[in-house]
């Protein structure tokens, strides 16, 4: 039987540790992905992810179900990411991967995907990473939450604490900047 987030939260508050473990299993990858895309550093993203669940566990008793559990979790993670960015006092830099190793790619590619396509895809990923890193934090966060986590505009607005129209404007502006960057890099 698959429990909903809210049911697992209730059971966790009631003392069932395994229920919280289920929540962790369910949300660790999305939270890590969010942290990685916002911060741009693998190791720090892991730390943020771990800290997110630690804080969630400690504050679980105060979760009243006013919002979705996932939104609550995202808020904790985003706050931690914001703290990290402020602590660093610089724009997060996405570490670029090493030059493409064709042998490594050959080992990982899909059976039907030609090497040239794989190289092009890896190259594009690098360009996207760089372009995202250059965006202002608000625009990057809006794009990440919408594009990769499927939140609605209203959920994003509630999460980051800004009006609905602001979220849409940030998204449009961020995508337009990315479009320009991609066009300049020949994509």
């Amino acid at each position, binding site marked *: 039987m698959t429990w909903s987030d809210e049911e697992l939260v209730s059971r*966790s508050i009631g003392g069932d*540790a*395994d*229920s*919280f*473990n289920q929540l*962790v*299993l369910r949300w*660790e*990858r999305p939270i*890590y*992905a969010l942290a*990685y*895309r916002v911060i741009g550093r*693998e*190791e720090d*993203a*892991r*730390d943020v*992810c*771990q*800290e997110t*669940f*630690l804080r969630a*566990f*400690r504050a679980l008793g105060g979760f009243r179900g006013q919002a979705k559990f996932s939104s609550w979790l995202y808020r904790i993670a985003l706050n931690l990411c914001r703290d990290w960015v402020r602590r660093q006092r610089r724009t997060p830099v996405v570490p670029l991967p090493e030059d493409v190793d064709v042998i490594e790619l050959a080992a990982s590619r899909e059976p039907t995907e030609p090497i040239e396509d794989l190289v092009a*895809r890896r190259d*594009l*990923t690098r*360009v*996207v*990473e760089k372009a*995202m890193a250059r965006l202002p934090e608000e625009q990057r966060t809006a*794009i990440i939450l*919408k*594009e*990769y986590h499927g939140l*609605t*505009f209203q959920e994003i607005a509630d999460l980051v604490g800004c009006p609905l*129209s602001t979220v*849409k*404007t940030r*998204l*449009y*502006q961020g*995508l*337009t*900047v*990315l*479009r320009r960057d*991609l066009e300049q890099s020949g*994509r």
Partner: protein
Amino acid sequence: MMTETLCNYPDRDEYLVAYLYDDIDSAEQTAFGSHLSGCRHCQQDLLALRGVRSALSTWAPPEPVFSNGESRVASPASRVPSPEARAASREQRAASREQRAASWWREMPAWAQVAAALFVLGVSATIANLDVRYDRSGLTIRTGWSQPRPAAQAPASATPWRAELTALESELRSEMKASQAAAAAASAPAAQTVMSDADFRRRVRALLDESEKKQQNELALRLVQFQTDISAQRQADLRTINQNLGFIQRDTYGELLKQREGMNYLLKVSQKQ
């Protein structure tokens, strides 16, 4: 960022992005869809942004490996580790011990490492009883086992490098002991539990902060000391200047008196005449 005035649809950017993500109510979607069919600029913009979304879909984060050595977060609700986790923890502790044992070697300065390498070479040469000569016949290397040792030969003259090697060895040993002692003192106290990556980073940051504070305090103390010295020197210089001025004043006054006496004498003489 200003949108080019090529389209006068109200809040055009917001509707475009809502339409792009299909996060729009049906009435607005119908209205904007109608607009799109007649607006080339919005059509091109929408197409371009769809291309951007396609590019964004290629960006995926790397596979995470968390501090528990697994690709999943260590849940804070897990109090009793599984047998697999305990085994992994034991391996991690062993690896950590090996790493700490080897770390003192990496912390040694480069010159000490070079000296250690030379020492090993020298010891090997001694063991092999190498006889290295460079003379008119060129460079000759012989192992000592191939010829009988000359008796009663002064060791210092035949192998002058032995004394140097012995000195180097004792210096190296003392340096290695000092490095080991420093590494042992700097390492965590005999903790039985493995320090996680996050805890280690926090500890390193705490040590760095402490070190920075100490340096700042020392700098402040030195600045205060410097200021005190400057002030004292200034006072001394002022006293000297005052003293010298006093001398000058005294001398000047003396000269004035002499000149006045001379003038008075001349006046008296001239009056008598």
